[in-house]
């Protein structure tokens, strides 16, 4: 098991490295820089800016510097002042020395918002996206699981068809369509919920529902298929044969086992949620990472683009790795290695 976990996470690290390199090359291999404007700046200013942001050294050096700043942790001592070049995402006070702090993950300063670092932007915007994502995931599970279970237990009845109809709706309709429809119904027609904004629980409902609906559908379909399969297994027949009530058969023997494959979908779900946040945050005016990313990409704010992509990619890759590990751990029939 240990070896499997290690291999899985080494692979995740490799993928992240390739993601970083590709992003870096894509952004730098093209003409024009973050400081090209309609009215060109004087050559001297550009040279100074390039020097300030370390853009005048060879590409490989820039890349290594950048990656080094992120992954190599440092321990600083003495009085520390926040500066644009040294702002670390994680800092832990160590219990010894003169104010010694363990610091890690420096994503550098932003090119466009000159007084902020990428970490400042993360700190301001990421919790919002994270909150939205978690609530959507809860919404998805709370709707999706029961829907799938009911559809499977009442197979080929009205409940099944209705449940799966809703699920097909959720799977085939992207956020870009659900968002305006929910917005119109709940916000304009019935005037129940605020259309846009962020901060109150009220304002969380619509975006979370929009994001959660699609994921709920995925969960429901998978749960149904999985439960149907489990109900055909021999041990379920054994449980019935020894005289257990249907309720006990389903609750104790079937449900637990049917959830194993459902766990795997949480990896792709993360991807779905991340994708969704771009649209949902734009439509609902939520000041999260997704919306910030879209604006930073048109401004060619290299460090912000790099940082966001890396954080999102890390989330996805780690989610997938965790799911793989959880899957092996949950299902003893799978051999690891």
């Amino acid at each position, binding site marked *: 098991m240990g070896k499997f976990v290690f291999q899985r996470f080494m692979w*995740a690290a*490799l*993928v992240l490295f*390739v*993601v970083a390199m*590709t*992003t870096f090359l*894509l*952004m730098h291999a*093209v*003409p*024009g820089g973050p400081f090209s404007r309609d009215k060109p700046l004087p050559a001297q200013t550009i040279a100074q800016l390039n020097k300030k942001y370390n853009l005048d050294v060879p590409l490989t050096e820039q890349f290594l510097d950048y990656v080094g700043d992120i992954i190599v942790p440092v321990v600083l001592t003495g009085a520390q002042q926040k500066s644009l070049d040294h702002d670390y995402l994680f800092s832990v006070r160590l219990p010894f020395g003169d104010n010694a702090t363990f610091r890690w993950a420096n994503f550098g300063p932003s090119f466009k918002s000159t007084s902020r670092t990428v970490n400042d932007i993360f700190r301001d915007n990421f919790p919002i996206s994270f909150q939205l994502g978690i609530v959507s995931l809860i919404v998805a599970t709370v709707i999706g699981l029961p829907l799938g279970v009911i559809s499977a237990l009442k197979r080929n009845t009205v409940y099944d068809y209705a449940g799966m109809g809703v699920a*097909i709706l959720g*799977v*085939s*309709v*992207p956020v*870009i*369509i659900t*968002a*305006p*429809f929910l*917005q*119109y119904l709940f*916000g*304009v*027609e019935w005037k129940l919920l605020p*259309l846009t904004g962020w901060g109150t629980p009220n304002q969380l409902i619509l975006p979370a529902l929009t994001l959660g609906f699609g994921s709920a559908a995925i969960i429901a*379909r*998978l749960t149904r*298929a999985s439960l*149907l399969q489990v109900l055909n297994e021999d041990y379920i027949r054994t449980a019935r044969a020894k005289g257990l009530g249907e309720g006990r058969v389903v609750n104790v023997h079937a449900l637990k086992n049917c959830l194993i494959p459902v766990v795997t979908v949480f990896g792709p779900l993360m*991807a779905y949620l*991340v*994708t969704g946040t*771009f*649209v949902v945050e*734009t*439509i609902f005016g939520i000041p999260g990472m997704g919306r910030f*990313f*879209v604006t930073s*990409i*048109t401004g*060619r704010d290299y460090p912000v*683009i790099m940082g966001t*992509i890396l954080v*999102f*990619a890390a989330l*996805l*890759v780690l989610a*997938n790795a965790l799911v793989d590990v959880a899957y092996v751990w949950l299902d003893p029939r799978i051999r690891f290695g």
Partner: protein
Amino acid sequence: MTTIKETTIPVVRLRKPAESRSLWGDALFRLRRNRAAVIGVIVLVLTIVIAIFAPVFAPKNYDAAVLSDNNAAPDWILRVFPTMISRDQGGYVTINNSYPLGADKLGRDLLSRIIYGARVSLEVALIGPLISIIVGVIVGLLAGYVGGRVDNVLMRVVDIMYAFPTLLLIILMMAVFRTSFEGQQPGTLAYSLNRLDSSMGGLLFVFVGIGLTAWMGMARLVRAQVLSVRELTYVEAARSVGAGSLTIIYKHILPNIVGTLIVAQTLDIPTYISYEAFLSFIGLGVKPPTPSWGSMISDGAQAIQTFPNQTLFPALALALVMFAFNFLGDGLRDALDPRLRGVD
């Protein structure tokens, strides 16, 4: 004789279909019995016809802007959306019945823009699978048939690409294309690419972005299929009578996997369409004034409170086409591989 004939009639009617149908005939028969798939096909055929003959069906040109008619709406829309109140009754909506679905904020006919917008979605639905099949089949065949080190290298590349968050990569590529190919000197490759892209309304880069990220799943699928078909007895038999690799691939392996490929690609089409809609939504997709349903939803979303028709109708069109492709894909899967029925 006559009595015998009469008794055999029911038997003949029962057995006839099973005897005379080929794989495709059989699939078509099953597809035609699937009501959802048939509806999907009808919707798609209608959409395709409308898109091809857009100038005939569209009442106006898609970029004909009449500024004085901005945000105008016909009578019936005001009845459907009770929040929209006409100017006569103290509201803000200008009534103009010459726009069947209303006009947008620049006074362009919504219906015409939706009709022309179908072209973009359908082109993506055509090009996406095409690129992904061509690249995916080549890579998958190489990996599966040649095997060994080639297989190893190709599959590791696919693995890494697969772990890449697709949408982030597309967004990034679009941003790079959009910002770097603009304002180049004539005569360079970047300049001609940008000219071509502009003449396609910004679609070229959308295709490239989707194409570069879509082939991995296909390559894996082809490889897996090739590996399973390669060892079958009839392929071995073909090899033993001296058939070359190309013949075996073309005559024996490809026909065997073509069904799976079609099903997989049809089920992927909604994803491609939603990528385009999404890119246009955040302003990295088609270039204005080319109408795309994604960019129309984005334009309308800002005015959903006042003019819900401007965002709901394009969203409805998009939903309809996505549904149609999903139904068709599900139907094709059931028809071509009945063993997969009900399995996701």
